[in-house]
């Protein structure tokens, strides 16, 4: 009996929480006149018209925005996986002068609010003529600036037996060989976690893309979506919701495929 109650409570809770999302999907399938009339979920006159309308109504095809986001996300994923693993390997396995200090610095940057570097970064990128290009979003990821991922990988590498390194060393591997042949393959789970979170966070990241991008054909999904109502007038809620749903789909798809890994990654971040 208690169990039934618990299930009923949890299901009701989940429903209330997810209701806004379900309602948005339903609203995206209704003609505009119907959206503001009923809080129910089933559209009376379902239509895909909002999707067709929204796709092209900002004057630039929504496909361009999706492509721009995809390009940036792919680059960031590659950058993070590559350079964070190099960094993590050095911190977890190699001995060098200044290791403790540098490791402490790396950890400290996890907590650093981005705003404290923002103004200066903006002026540096401006001097490089990088404003209104993708570089300000991409280049930092190739310099292992997301210390959270470095830390995640350091923790993971520490759980790989050192004997494997020793065996490889006896077989004539140097530091690079050990990284390439032993660590990298065994690190795959952490690399996948890094790739997934890099993708989702970059896809949703609004602030950086807002300040750096301005030409319409270079906009990414969040920035374009935010300008949607300005561009179309405030009567186009249906089309707006349709495009909102489109922007959420990639994240949801990634979540459905990698659900276990994402939740495990989240949990892992909290426990050492």
């Amino acid at each position, binding site marked *: 009996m208690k169990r039934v109650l*618990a*299930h009923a409570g*949890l299901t009701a*809770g989940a429903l209330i*929480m997810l209701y*806004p*999302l379900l*309602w948005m999907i339903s*609203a995206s399938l209704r003609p505009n006149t119907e959206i*503001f009339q*009923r*809080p129910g979920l089933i559209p009376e006159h379902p239509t895909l018209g909002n999707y067709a309308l929204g796709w092209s109504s900002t004057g630039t095809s929504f496909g361009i925005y999706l492509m721009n986001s995809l390009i940036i996300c792919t680059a960031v994923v590659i950058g993070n996986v590559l*350079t964070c693993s*190099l*960094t993590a390997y*050095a*911190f977890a396995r190699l*001995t*060098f*002068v200044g290791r403790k200090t*540098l490791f402490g*610095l*790396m950890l400290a*940057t996890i*907590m*650093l*609010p981005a*705003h*404290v*570097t*923002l*103004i*200066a*970064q903006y*002026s*540096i990128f401006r001097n490089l003529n990088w404003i209104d290009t993708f570089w300000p979003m991409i280049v*930092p990821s*190739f310099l*292992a*600036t997301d210390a959270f991922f470095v830390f995640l990988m350091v923790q993971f590498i520490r759980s790989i037996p050192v004997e494997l390194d020793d065996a490889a060393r006896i077989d004539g591997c140097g*530091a690079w060989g050990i990284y390439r042949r032993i660590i990298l393959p065994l690190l795959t789970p952490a690399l996948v976690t890094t790739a997934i979170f890099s993708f989702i966070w970059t896809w*949703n990241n*609004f*602030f950086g893309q807002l300040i750096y991008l301005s030409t319409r054909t270079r906009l990414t*999904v*969040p920035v374009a*979506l935010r300008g*949607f109502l300005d561009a179309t007038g405030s009567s186009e809620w249906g089309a707006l919701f349709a495009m*909102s749903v489109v*922007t*959420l789909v990639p*994240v*949801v798809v990634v*979540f459905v495929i990698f659900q276990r890994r*994402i*939740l495990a990654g*989240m*949990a892992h971040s*909290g*426990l050492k």
Partner: protein
Amino acid sequence: MIANLRRSVPAYLFLLPWFIGLVGLTIGPMLLSLYYSFTDYALLNTPEWTGLQNYTNLFQDPRYLQSLEVTFVYVAVSVPLEMAFALAVAVLLNRGLKGLAVYRALYYVPSLLGGSVAIALLWQQIFGTDGLLNDVLGIFGIEGRGWISEPGTALWTLIVLRVWQFGAPMVIFLAGLRQIPDEVLEAAEVDGAGRWQRFWRVTLPLLSPVVFFNLVLQIIGAFQAFTPAFVISGGKGGPSDSTLFYTLYLYQQAFGNFRMGYAAAMAWVLLLIIAVFTGLNFVLGRTWVFYGDEGVRR
């Protein structure tokens, strides 16, 4: 020493990209921002030294003080609520119920999407005068209001949005709960501890390091909230500056008015605020965080 340095060369090569980033994108810009904060700098001019002017101006700027207040209220209300929901649902889910994985995933979905522009726009509709919430209230005969257009309630819609995302700390709580050995709880039960007592006396102390970790992270994150306030208020922080988050005002000063020096000063004060709160957390944490029989580790 020389020999040690020579042996360090391979490691330094591995660290090279990270080190360039640390110097060029973190420490360098931090110091440069610090310098800008003592200058009058509008991006197109050469920064002009003004000493402490920006900092003294900050605390005479009513909109800045307003943004501080808004942000403090937001952090002080949303973080405890979010943590309480996360903990309560995690405890409920941890009782060996079937379908745990499904519930966990469903409750996590808002955290996954909540930071996006799409959800902020959805919120704008839900809490609007003609929005979903008022439709639902109408069914029960309750007169709705313009939740977002009235200064008294606008901030609360943003707090609700944050609390809605309690799934992320919940997942971390669940992992923490799983590490508490059943024997400890069974022993307490044998000793006659009721369900409530077991939670307060056994589960919560053993979980306290995880609570601490979540608290530190959530506070740091909440201080930096930006997207929902920006999108929902159309970039203005209104109505009547009631949703003027700290970072939103910083954005307005830097990229609306091009007062880069002023914004840099704001950023450094934010860093100090976050550092003080994190430090305070660690000091207070000593009184309630329990690290088991190895004593207090940090």
